């Protein structure tokens, strides 16, 4: 489950932020997760508390904002919603869709004290 290492990276980003901004406790971490990306939101939630235990993010809440999948259809010549990374165009059912959005994985913000 690579979500464990992804959360370790999240905690490292938070720890690094503490060296720039004074705070002693993190009460909420908000992630932006693409619907078509490599990370499964439920798996991120599942391992978050175990990985955060004993760190500055111990007992912090995890919030996940899902960014929907989006693609560019070469036949419709427009942006279309995409449910699967290699899905067909939901408008014309054609296969010439290139994914353009929904692949992010970012720490967006956090609440600190």
């Amino acid at each position: 489950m690579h979500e464990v290492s992804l959360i370790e990276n999240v905690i490292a980003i938070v720890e690094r932020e503490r060296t720039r901004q004074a705070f002693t406790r993190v009460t909420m971490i908000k992630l932006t997760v693409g619907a078509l990306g490599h990370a499964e939101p439920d798996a991120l939630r599942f391992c978050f508390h175990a990985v955060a235990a004993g760190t500055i993010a111990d007992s912090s809440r995890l919030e996940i904002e899902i960014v929907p999948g989006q693609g560019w259809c070469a036949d419709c010549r427009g942006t279309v919603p995409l449910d699967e990374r290699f899905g067909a165009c939901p408008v014309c059912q054609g296969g010439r869709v290139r994914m353009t959005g929904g692949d992010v994985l970012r720490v967006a913000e956090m609440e600190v004290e």
Partner: protein
Amino acid sequence: MCTVCGCAHDHDHGVGSSHHHIHATGAIDFGHGPAGVSVPGLSQARTIRIERDVLAKNNGFAEANRKRIRQAGTFALNLVSSPGSGKTTILVRTLTELRQSRPLAVIEGDQQTSNDAERIRQTGVQAVQVNTGKGCHLDAHMVGHAMDQLSLIPGGLLFIENVGNLVCPAAFDLGEACKVVVLSVTEGEDKPLKYPDMFAAAELMLLNKSDLLPHLDFDMDACLAAARRVNPAMQIFTISARTGEGFAAFHAWIAARAASYLRPMATPA
């Protein structure tokens, strides 16, 4: 902070360092959890917007690896597949056939044991075993440390055999020139559709164990169609690590791809 790799620990990079240690066998063990620090206290609550890419740190290490490999004049491939598709057997045949003509090196990733690195060393090729412990993939930081133990020589090839896993290694750039995905005909022909991230990330697919085809109901056309749907640009070779079928094409591909990758970049006019 560690000044060698920038990781957030105070440690040296020798035996017994806090985030990994090197076994007597030379295997590098990353199976230790991170040391955390807790500082309780109360102050005014506030929200900080930071907008950081979670994989930025890995990608930074990967770029450093890529630069180092390229400067050494070496071409690196990252071999990925599910467990048991034949990555190590493919490597053993490839190393045996190529070792007279080029300098070779191998990084072996597994959760535990140095069995694979020992198999590789029996071919006479240098190999470093990385044990990921709880981890399900190699990351660029581990590969950087493994490279410290190898000599990369101009015109050489570096093969990185990832942990057998078709999901997680797709997300972690190691600094390789390209990923090679291995699928064997004893697996389902729809695997590229079930695990699209990996097949989308690969430049080459090796369809292994072709010697077993007469005994199976494997639908070759359906498999190739599934792979091409996920990645229309991917090259595909059908091979057998047992009989050697298809290896001439695979090795010719490596030679051509390495030559174009290592060609000096044109200087801007």
